């Protein structure tokens, strides 16, 4: 009898441990907080890249050169292709959007839409030609042409042996004058991580 009772207590304790270990706990954290779990690319890396490159591009000589050459007119930039050549899935849009936001907040650089969003805009404009009233219809051929295109690449190098790993990321962005093909700015951000399992 005593033996059965102890077995029942043990079974209850084991099941309690199993239930508590299986329950998932979720806590909201500050997005600015650095939490490294796997050593892969994460939000902190994206934020570091955005901060460094935003600061770099807004304080580089190309901006003042452009405003001087164009009578104080601010440059218009279009974001081109960002190539991810690293070993991981990295979404460049997370830091590109931060950079674009900084352009608009400082009001020193203009932005025009590109890619699929631009196609959608033109589709909407085409739709307006046959459906919108004449006074509200938007015309073709009056878009702002970009002065510069922002392109970039993400590269990584992995050096691993047994339980140790060093991962280096390099994010490059470059700004090219669309008229002259001249590269007016190149910025980069390097991040290296040491991971020990």
């Amino acid at each position, binding site marked *: 009898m005593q033996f059965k009772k102890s077995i029942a207590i043990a079974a209850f304790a084991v099941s309690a441990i199993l239930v508590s270990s299986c329950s998932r706990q979720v806590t909201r954290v500050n997005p600015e907080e650095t939490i490294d779990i796997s050593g892969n690319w994460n939000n902190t890396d994206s934020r570091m890249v955005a901060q460094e490159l935003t600061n770099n591009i807004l304080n580089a000589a190309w901006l003042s050169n452009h405003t001087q050459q164009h009578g104080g007119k601010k440059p218009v930039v279009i974001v081109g292709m960002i190539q991810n050549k690293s070993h991981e899935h990295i979404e460049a849009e997370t830091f590109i959007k931060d950079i674009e936001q900084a352009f608009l907040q400082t009001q020193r650089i203009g932005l025009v839409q590109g890619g699929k969003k631009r*196609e959608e805009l033109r*589709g909407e404009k*085409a739709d307006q*030609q046959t459906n919108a009233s004449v006074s509200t219809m938007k*015309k*073709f051929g*009056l878009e702002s042409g970009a002065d510069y295109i922002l392109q970039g690449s993400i590269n990584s190098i992995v050096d691993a042996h047994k339980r140790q790993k060093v991962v280096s990321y390099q994010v490059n962005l470059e700004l090219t004058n669309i008229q002259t093909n001249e590269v007016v700015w190149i910025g980069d951000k390097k991040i290296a991580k040491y991971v020990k399992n």
Partner: protein
Amino acid sequence: MKRSLFFTIAMFGLAVTASAQQGSFDPDQNPRARESAGKYSRMIDSLTSDQGATVQNTYKAYDWYEARDTRRQERRARNAAFYNSGYYQNYGYGNSLFYPSFGGGYYNGFGNSFFAPTFRIGGRSHRFYH
């Protein structure tokens, strides 16, 4: 007579204004704007069909637990397929996949009770691995 003349002039003016609004050419407008308008007028439906919708361009993020479960499921499916394929015939010599055998499994068949643990349900003996 005067009235009809006034009406004609008014209608003409209205027509001119309307056509000017519709086909007016801004001095800064791209001279090839009509080409663009023609091109995009053929793609209106496909370009505006996603308006107001969320396009899901998602990707599968790596999750250690999920990856482990997937590996397990794949392994079980592989094993099940193997046992059901007909290539594997268990003659009661034990599971040669899990137990190394000597003499092509023949010997292992006789030594089965020694290598494979058994348990009893309702007075009948069963092997853990079948």
